[in-house]
Each structure stands twice: as C-alpha cells, then as structure tokens.
C-alpha cells in the first residue's frame, strides 16, 4: 500500500511532428497524499500542463502508470476538478447557469446537487450575483464562480493550471489565498501549476521542481511556514519564506542558468 492518493510512476510523453519527436516528460514519478497541496514549478514550456492533462486523464501517457489509493478503500480514479488559466465563464449563461454546466454535462442535476450549488453560492459570497451575467463580476468573483462550477461536481482531486495568472497582482494575492482556503476547508487534495515561486511557497505543502524539457523531477521541497493566520501577507512574512524562495529559485536556475 502506498501512502498516496495518487502516485505517478515513470510517466513519459512525447509530441510528434513530421520534423521529429519532442520528448516532453521523461520518467516523472511522484505521489500526492490525500488532503495535500502540491505545487509544480518548472521553466516555461517544460511540459507542466501536459503533466496535468495526463493526471486529469485528458491525454494518455506513452509510458508509465498512475496508481490510485483512495482513503475509503473504493476503487476507481478519484473524481477530478480542473481549473484553467482563465475562468471561461460563458457569457450567454447567467452566473448560476455557468455553475451548473458540469452537472448538466454529466446529467447530475439532482435536487441534492442543486442545493449544494446554492449552498456554495451563499457560502462564497456570490448569492447576490446568482442571476447576473459573468461580465458583471470582478476578476476575483469570476474565479470564485469558476471554482464553484468545479466544486459542484464534488471532485476529490483539484488540478489548477496557472489558475490565477490572468488576474492582476493584488487580486491574485487575495484570490489565490482565498480559493486555497476554500479548498483546504473542504479537505480536498490539490495539485497546482504555477510560474510564481512566491505563490508556490505561500500555498503549497510541497513543491515539485521540474527540469527544462524533457522534464524530470529535479527536487521535492516540503514547505513548513510558521504563520498564525491564513493570509497571503502572513505567509510572505513568515521567517522561512525567503529561505524556501531562494532554495526553489536556485533549484530552477542552476538547471536553467538563464541564458
């Protein structure tokens, strides 16, 4: 038995064109425990998004396996929630209808699930915007609406693909902490990709550093920040913050050596 909710073993993936093969992922192995927050950082274009798509089951790895070990002992792949770079709320639907999109697609519009969405709406401060159109919301509210759309499907594992990168810096600090608090409070597991090292240190329990293409796991860094309140500023002011930041920076750069 592994201690992990899901465990990647020797995942390999290549892109093929007529000009040849580009190896994107090379024997990637790591595990994620139930309830853990893992951030994946790596140089641009190293195949982070590809890795996330493989975990989500959107594409199949060419080699390697993913082992699953759910805490309740049930078989089957954990239910995945995926958050993309932009919120992609559909303009022709109201905020509420947008949140039901996943349930509609999976034909799970049961009373229980509808009540759950209503509950989430109220809990996360969007109750008053239920019948508004997405363009009437601020960037942070849109990202929250997108989170509710994802949570409505009751996922066990959340994947965030640069989910905050479309927001301006100040909003991003607040919204990323906000959304991670929500996910943490529901006890879900999360894997996030980010370019922002400070974001990774602030939010994750463990950071996985990938090398440039073909990506391999360069280092795994567990993060323990001493903070007394869950705010982004508190995390940045934690005494360990700078050491972690420098460590990850070094891991990334002696690979990359910034030409």
């Amino acid at each position, binding site marked *: 038995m592994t201690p992990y909710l899901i465990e990647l073993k020797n995942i390999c993936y290549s892109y093929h064109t007529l000009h040849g093969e580009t190896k994107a992922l090379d024997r990637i192995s790591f595990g994620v425990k139930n309830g853990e927050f893992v951030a994946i950082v790596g140089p641009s274009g190293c195949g982070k998004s590809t890795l996330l798509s493989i975990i*989500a089951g*959107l594409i199949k790895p060419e080699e390697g396996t993913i082992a699953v070990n759910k805490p309740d002992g049930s078989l089957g792949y954990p239910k*995945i929630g*995926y958050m*993309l*770079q*932009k919120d*992609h709320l*559909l*303009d*022709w639907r109201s905020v509420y209808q947008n949140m039901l*999109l*996943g349930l*509609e*697609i*999976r034909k799970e519009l049961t009373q229980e699930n509808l009540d759950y969405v209503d509950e989430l709406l109220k809990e996360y401060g969007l109750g008053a915007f239920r019948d508004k*159109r997405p363009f009437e919301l601020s960037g942070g509210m849109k990202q929250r609406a997108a989170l509710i*759309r994802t949570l409505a*499907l009751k996922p066990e594992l959340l994947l965030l693909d640069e989910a905050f990168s479309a927001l301006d810096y100040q909003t991003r600090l607040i919204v990323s902490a906000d959304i991670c608090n929500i996910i943490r409070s529901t006890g879900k597991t999360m894997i996030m990709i980010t370019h922002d090292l400070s974001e990774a240190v602030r939010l994750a329990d463990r950071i996985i550093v990938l090398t440039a293409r073909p990506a391999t796991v360069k280092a795994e860094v567990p993060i323990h920040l001493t903070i007394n309140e869950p705010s982004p500023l508190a995390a940045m002011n934690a005494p360990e913050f700078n050491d972690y930041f420098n460590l990850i920076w070094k891991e990334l750069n002696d690979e990359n050596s910034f030409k």
Partner: protein
Amino acid sequence: MKTHSNSQLTNQELFVKEHRKHHHQVAAYRILIFIGFLLLWELSVFFGGLDAFFFSSPSRVLQCFIDLTLNKSLFMHIGITLLETLISFLLVLIISLVVATALWYSGKLSEVLEPYLVILNSLPKSALAPLFIVWLGTGMSTIIVAGISVAVFGSIISFYTAFQQISQSEITLIYTLGGDKNHALTKVVLPGSIPTLISTAKVNIGLSLVGVIIGEFLAARRGLGYLIIYGSQVFQLDMVITSIILLCIIAMGFYKVIQYIEHCIKKKLLK
C-alpha cells in the same frame, strides 16, 4: 446664470440632446436625398431631359403600380417571389448548419471537401440555372434551387469558420468537466457562434433573393423576376422599373426583419 443659454441643462442632458440631434440630422439627410432624387427624376422627365419611355418617372411608376395591382395581380407576383425567397433562405440555413456541423465533427471530412467548397463558392451560380431548368423543369422547385445555390456554399464556409473560431480552451473546459464532443458542440460551439450565424443570415437572405430573381428570369410565369423580363420584352419599362423598386423595398424589409430577430435574440441572451 443668464450668460449661458443652456445653463439649466446638466452636462448629461446636453450630451443626450447632442446625440439626438445627430440622429435626427442623419435621418433628415436620408429623407432629403430620397425626395431630391424623386424630384430630379420627375422634373427631368417633365422638362424633356429624359425620355419617359426609357427612364419612366415616379408618377408613371405609381400609375404602373396601380395598373399592375388591378389588372395583373401584382400582389400574387410579389407573394410568389417572397415565398420562394423565404423557402430557399430557410433551406440554406438548415443545409449549411447541418453541413458545417458535419465538417466540424470530422476534421478529415473538412480537409477533403475544402477545395470543392471553394470552387463551388466561387463559381458564378447563374451559370447553373439553365441546368436546373433542364433537370427540374420550369416550376417553383427550379427557382428555389437557384436561390439555394447562390447562398449555400458561402454560408457553409462562414458557419464552419465561425465554429472553428471558438476558443480551444473553452472546448477544453467542456472536456475537463467530463463532456465529449457533442457537449462541446451544444454547450459552447453553437451558442458561441450565434452572432456570426445571424450576420451570415443577413447576407444569405439577400443572396437567396438574387438567386430567386435569376431563376425567375429564366424559368417562371410568375414573380417579380418574371415581370422584369416580361416588361423588357414588351418594352414596358415602367413595369421593369416598378418591379425593381419593389425588389428594393423587399430587400430592405427582409433586412429589417432579421435585424429585429437579432435584436430579440441579443436581448434574450444578454438578459
């Protein structure tokens, strides 16, 4: 206070006033051009500058309109042309939606058919009309097919292009929510393409009318196209010009109707 004549208006009211004034001016110039044109036309004929036999005149058009209504059942001809245009327009919409959806589903199919679509789209469709007459006879079906042939290929290409311009990440969103290609079509691609579908429809109704008139030139005993050809053959140019003016009004009417439908859909979509 007395120094400014508009001192009781706020800036907002001034802005609204300016805006209204602009719109009234545009409307006034439009009407002025129309009346000026009619006057110039009528007077040139009246003072002998233009030969009324060839160029008709507004009063003769009006007289002709009344005669045609009384003796030649003008409204039957108008009705036939309208009906044929509407049927071919609706068929164009249905055919191009179905074909564009099929092309969207199968990348291979669209790649295979691309050169054929391009050729058929650039082919002058009036060249096909004689063939339709031989194949389908001189009835209404020939004319409807002629109307379809003018609009349908461009419409397929526009619809398909609209489908392709839907952002790939919105389609990825559907997949991340557990959907498949059918969901991507019904939840994102079709609703996201509605603005393009409507603007294509605006072009299509005009093209269908063009096709129907070509068809009526060659193969009809009824309709405005027939009246134009008949009028030119018996040198009743009043009849020709009256029919052309009626076509202008029909084209404008179609455009307005689609504009109204567009307005309703937009209102419904955005609250």
